[in-house]
């Protein structure tokens, strides 16, 4: 018995050592135009399938419309257009990330596909300029490489706060 405790104790210690990357933060990763992006999970209130939309005439291009989610009105924005990528037809995999904007507005960001939650330590995030070089939009905070995949971390707060002031 004592032997068992000793052995599993050692295993745990080993595991702890190898995964001691420092405090980890969770990021939700999603796809936009074949690239993978991620945002801190805390900022996302909910993930939804796109609900029926009502178009808003004369609204900025990236506004797809408004929708109702459990009685609450949300503004749906095409994140591709917002980040100045090309538009695309939604697919079965398209999802809405629900976040809270200024003045308690609920904003739904349309993304191509929601992937998974990654855990990244702070020191595992590299400055974007080093990797990608050249000019980058302000909203890119850094780059992570969980499991070898390239993930761009973006500052969703900045993206949202600028809505309505175009």
């Amino acid at each position, binding site marked *: 018995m004592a032997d068992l405790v000793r052995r599993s104790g050692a295993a745990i210690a080993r595991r702890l050592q190898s995964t001691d990357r420092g405090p980890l933060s969770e990021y939700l990763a999603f796809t936009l135009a074949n690239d993978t992006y991620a945002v801190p999970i805390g900022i996302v209130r909910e993930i939804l399938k796109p609900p029926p939309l009502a178009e808003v*005439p*004369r*609204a900025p291009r990236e*506004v797809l*419309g*408004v929708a109702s989610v459990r009685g609450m009105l949300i*503004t749906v924005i095409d994140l591709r257009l917002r980040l100045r990528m090309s538009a695309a037809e939604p697919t079965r995999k398209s999802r809405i990330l629900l976040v809270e904007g200024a003045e308690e*507005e609920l904003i739904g960001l349309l993304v191509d596909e929601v992937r998974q939650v990654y855990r990244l330590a702070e020191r595992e995030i590299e400055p974007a300029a080093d990797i990608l070089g050249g000019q980058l939009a302000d909203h890119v905070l850094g780059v992570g490489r969980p499991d070898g995949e390239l993930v761009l971390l973006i500052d969703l707060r900045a993206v949202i706060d600028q809505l*309505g002031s*175009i």
Partner: protein
Amino acid sequence: MEGSGDKAREEFFSEAQEIIELLSRDLLALEGRMASGVIDPELVNNVFRSVHTLKGLSGLFGAHRMGALSHELESLLDALRLGKVDLSASVLDVLFRGIDLYGRILAVEKGVRTDPLADLDDYLVELARVGTKAPPKAETTLADYEIDPGVLAVLTEYEEHRLRSSLQQGLRLYRLRVVLKLMTIDEELESLKSRAKPLGEIITYLPTGQGADADSIELDILIVSSAAIDLLRSELGGPTAELTELPRRAAASPASAKANEPSGALSLVLDSIPPEPGAITPAPAPPPKPEVYAADAISLRSLAQTVRVDIRKLDRLMNIVGELAIVRNALSRLTERLREVAGSRELRVELHRLHRGFDRNLADMQSGILEVRMVPLGQLFDKLGRVVRQLSREAGKEVGLVITGGETEVDKLIVEELSDPLMHMMRNAIDHGIEPREARIERGKPQVGTIALNAFQKGSHVVIEIEDDGAGIDEKKLLQRAIERGVIDGQHASELGRREILNLVFVPGLSTRDEASELSGRGVGMDVVKTNIARLGGVIDIHSELAIGTRVTITLPITLAIISALIVQVTGRTFAIPVSSVLEAIRLEPSAAQRLEGREVMTLRGSTLPLCRLEELFGFVPRGAQQSGRQFVVVVGVGTRRLGFVVDELVGQQDVVIKPLGRSLRSVRGFAGATELGDQRVALVLDAPALLEEITGATDSSRAGAMMYG
């Protein structure tokens, strides 16, 4: 502040805020009465009690600074109400500064400001000084009066003071003996108090210890009044109420005047009462008096009849009502569909009956909740009173504020949003409107300027008027400045009507004041006011006469919540148009539309109605196979202007809950919000007045409209 839970802190803030507002109102009222030479002791007492309550509240929540301030203020107020200190203008000033300090302390505690509040200590010192600067007053003895020493013994210092000073002023002392039923004692006492107030002052309430029965209580109420006994009897007397006067004893001999203990010389005027134990006689045991003043106990209880509610809870309730409305609509559609199903008649009838019951109850609940959200505008108006006082002092002008219609009720959210615009307009009226004293005298106007705030209900709207008897708006100067700033083309200027010129006030950055005023900064900010009012679904209008005055009129819908709307379809998309804007809806014969000066119009009962094809305005490409040629025109109107929206389908009319569009959409014009129609479908709600202005404004003779809003 010590760490109490967040919720407790919130409650402390809101309760303290309420008390401070009450304080402010009472002080303003006190000041107002003082101006006519009357010092209302009840108001002084109210202020004292409010500060006392704040002191207790502060102690409870560990707000030390507020507690210290309250403690000093309480001492001063106690001295005031006991007549030890005279209420003068400078004392009143000190009290007002105390309220400002309260406000600042609260703001600092909330973290809104970071004032070091250095002057708090200086103020406290000054406060203490004022409180003790009391000249010694000549005391008169109450023993001259035929009041039982037993009674005097149970009077508090305050009541004794009130009694003494009233008698000194030559008022008479009466005793009203009433029998009141315990069940209804609150209302009966309130009624008595309100009947007595115009006639005199109630000093104290004393239970006689003889109840008529187990359900009633007998009270002796001591009243001082200048009125004759007959008048009092007719007002206050009754089958269960008996009024007698307690006269002053005639020329009391020095010996008995000095005597303070019961002696034979004391003629018991109160001898109509059989001397029973517990009755008001010089018995060793005075009748048991409630620990709290009877008056206080009653009024504290009525305070508890109101409930403070977080408005977000009300919003949630309104949302739920909205959801229920959708269910009700779905229910009615279901009933309709059942018609197709054979043999379902009985079920259908039952369902229909249930639907009707549901509908009725829902309507009641809806109006009930809406009523809860309504608050009287008076709350806001009183706050403005303080602002006016402060601003007029700063500007060195004497301004009187007249408030009417404060009881008019409006949705709480609207009241909140109105606060800033109205304050802005007060600033304008005081800064630009009311002239300096010399100018007013020259013009033959009264030295004291007047600002009138009035509110009343008009149908489903509330109208608020702000009027001043000041300089009025100089249209020539305004027009000139607009031309200088490039807002108006010099040529078109001559085409502008008076109304359009006055509306230039709403153009950002325009101000006819040559120097930037330290109160309002550059420009008058009326553009912001107009935007705020528009956001609430209201309109704002200005009338002005040079040298006579200006009147600003704000018209608002009473509530933002549920309204009735016409549901229409335009190229397959659904929209809602509030019924309040809709004049009528008619079929559009294809041949009826004609072109006139480049716009589409039609003739409706002899007049020309401009048309607007929504699909064109909104930039829709016609969806799917369409155009059976049958279209409809929804005629909307604001004031005297008319416009016909051309739509494809009239779906029906239903109650909708308008949810405002988010901040990210604030650049989008023409929509009041969006609503859910049922099964998650959403429709945008048109803002008919805004669209009307947008479309017809450009064709008005006032080209200024186009330039301002284009």
